[in-house]
């Protein structure tokens, strides 16, 4: 079963490329245009990873990230911040709030795909370890 990636971004032009690239890489893709829509998609689409922009209408990316991390069970869900807000203080804030990676625009698509793969692998490995521990317990 292909992994599910949720793209949260309000800029249509970047979404076109992201959607295309993720689909070509074999992921199942859903798109949210703002923070509220993102929370709904998380509940219905159950993504395995989120590509999250910071500057969104309504709830911003940091707000969404905090909601995600607040919910028990969502701790493992990898979130990659993908944003034009590239100041060091914003990167530090994103990481402090629980992002798994912080990538600033413009980014290399290859690096992005590598990061997506790495995060999904790490998450899968963590789940296997957890099951293994449960099993050995």
């Amino acid at each position: 079963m292909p992994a599910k990636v949720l793209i949260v971004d309000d800029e249509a032009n970047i979404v076109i490329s992201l959607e295309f690239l993720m689909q070509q890489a074999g992921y199942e893709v859903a798109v949210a245009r703002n923070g509220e829509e993102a929370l709904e998609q998380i509940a219905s689409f159950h993504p395995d990873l989120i590509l999250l922009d910071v500057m969104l209408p309504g709830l911003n990316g940091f707000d969404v990230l905090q909601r995600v991390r607040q919910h028990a069970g969502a701790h493992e869900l990898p979130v990659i911040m993908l944003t034009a807000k590239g100041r060091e203080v914003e990167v530090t804030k994103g990481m402090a709030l629980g992002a798994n990676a912080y990538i600033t625009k413009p980014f290399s698509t290859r690096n992005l795909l590598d990061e997506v793969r790495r995060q999904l692998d790490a998450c899968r490995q963590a789940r296997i370890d957890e099951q293994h521990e449960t099993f050995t317990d």
Partner: protein
Amino acid sequence: MKRSQISKLVGVVALTALATGLGAGWLLAQAAQQNGALLWLGVALILAALIIAAVTGQRFVRAFVWDVRRLIDAGRLMLTVHPKHRVQPIGLPDIQEMAALLNQFAERLEQVQKERAEIVRQARSDVEQERAMLATLLAELTEGVLVCNLDGQILLYNRSARRLLDGSPSDAAQPFVGLGRSVFGLIDRNAIVHALEQVHYLLQRRKPDEQAMMTSFVIAAANGRLLRTRLAPLTEGDGSLRGYILTLQDVGEGIERSLRRDALLQTLTERQRASLGAIRAAIEAMESYPNMTAAQRQRFQQVILDEAQQLSEQIDEMMRGHASDLRAQWMLEEIAAPDLLWAVQRRLADRLGVEVTPGAMDDALHLKIDNYTLMQGLFHLAHTLSQDFGVRSLTLSVQGVESFAAIDIEWPCRGVAMERWQRWKERAFVVDDRDGVVTLREVAERHGGEVWFQMRPSGESAYFRLLLPRAVDATPVASAPAKSFMAPSVESRPEYYDFDLFHQPGQHPELDRRPLRSLTYTVLDAETTGLTPGLDEIVSIGALRIVNGRLLRQEVFEQLVDPRRPIPAAATAIHGITDEMVKGQPTIEVVLPRLLKFVEDTVLVGHNLAFDLRMFKEKEAESGVCFVNPVLDTLLLSAVLHPEEERHGLEDIARRLGVQVLGRHTALGDAILAGEIFLRMIPLLEERGIYTLQQARVAAEQTYFARLEY
């Protein structure tokens, strides 16, 4: 011969003449019954006797009452304010001798005074030189300097301070810089109090090798200028705080420009990053998948075209939009983490009664903050926590996080709705005296930082984190390039200082009981189109201040006023003000509010001031200004001092008191003259037992002139 003997002799002569005349007259009247001619002789004798008695009596009064009175008045003048005054030797030889003796005494006194003055002058020349050097240095400084006592009264200021703090002449509400005036009218009181608290703390934990005990902050002055202000304490020998020195630097323009550039750069960067991100992703997608369909390729090409177009538009829009970006700006100062913690702890405990426990603390950490604004922000946060949520105890920690400093305010808390806290940082609070409304998020942003709310993983406490820039390794401030000392020049001289104000009581004590010498006065005069209040108008007002017995010629109010009616030639002949001169000048309802500001907290002094005040009163409804200051009138005081004199005109009094008359019949010239006269009157009033404002007013009210009404 003694005075009593003379008066006895004169009395005897007068009485003998009178008795002889009356007796001879009576005898002749008896004889006239027999001889009619003798009747007229008798009448003539009686008249002669009466004339001799009257003349003798008049001489007696002149010689022993008026001439003596004249000697006393002259002696008093010579002894006090007019040592060069001399008595005319007229009258009886004894009186003349006494006058000559008095003149000799006056000569001797003048000589002694001259010698003493010379000694004092020599003794003070060193001090004067140092003062001149200080004055020159201050005058040459581009930084403004203010020295204030703990009541906030200005004891010294330089020209730059005045330039930086004075308002524009058209703005009636602007306060003035001046000796004895309150600094709080010019700079936000809270900012100064806060800075003093910090300095006090620094003084307490002072180490012997530490020299500079100053703190700085950036503040918007009452005139709207953004000033970087440094406050250094003035201490007594025992280390107690006596006053403080403020140095001021205009940072408004520079900082606003650079921050606008910064904001422009940041916004441009963010938006361009987004566009470039879309372009790069599209190109890389086309590159990575060369076999994509024609429709897909067309779609990506369209993305690239759109984004490139947007990039150009963004740049144009930003250049237009940000050219007028004038939001208030901040300037950051360095502070050590423990000092910041202390200041916050103390403020929250003192003002809110909230217990603040120190948490994690990085002693070596230095932050770059705007002390005052940040403190307001944290105070607001703690205040809401305490008022709205009943939080009584907070933990405050300051520690390094990556290359930032994190200030965490933490409190015990379970299961809070996060939305509520998110809204918090957006809630506005008032920061400065310009009613600049700023949110916590903006405070963080303007420090180049971030703020957010978070629960601890344990779920038992929550905290607000302010992530702020760390100060780069503390480096000493580069010392100013050495400047060769310049000899004091007359032009650069006048600095305005009066350190005696250190000993002044507070700003608003019971004025009436205060000695005349200690009061602050405004001497004022107005020139008009004529002498009828209600019909005539004011064309010019001049005023200046007397502080600690000195007429401050640098602090003047001088304003022509458009009377909105022609000025009669007769009036122009007196004061020289023509219709052309007042054209375009402000009208009286604009000028009076500004004058009111100039005279506030002072006693008004003027010559025949009742007239000027009556003219002002006529304009009360138009200008909305009412002068309630206590008043002393030199016309009435002159009548108190010299009741025997008939003339109490400004020039008559000036001549009597030895004041040189210059520049008469300009409002300011007359005000200066009245001021000099008033200063000479103070010791004369004291000789008559009049020391306080109340005593002077009561004495003035009792004179004849006080009953004149306009």
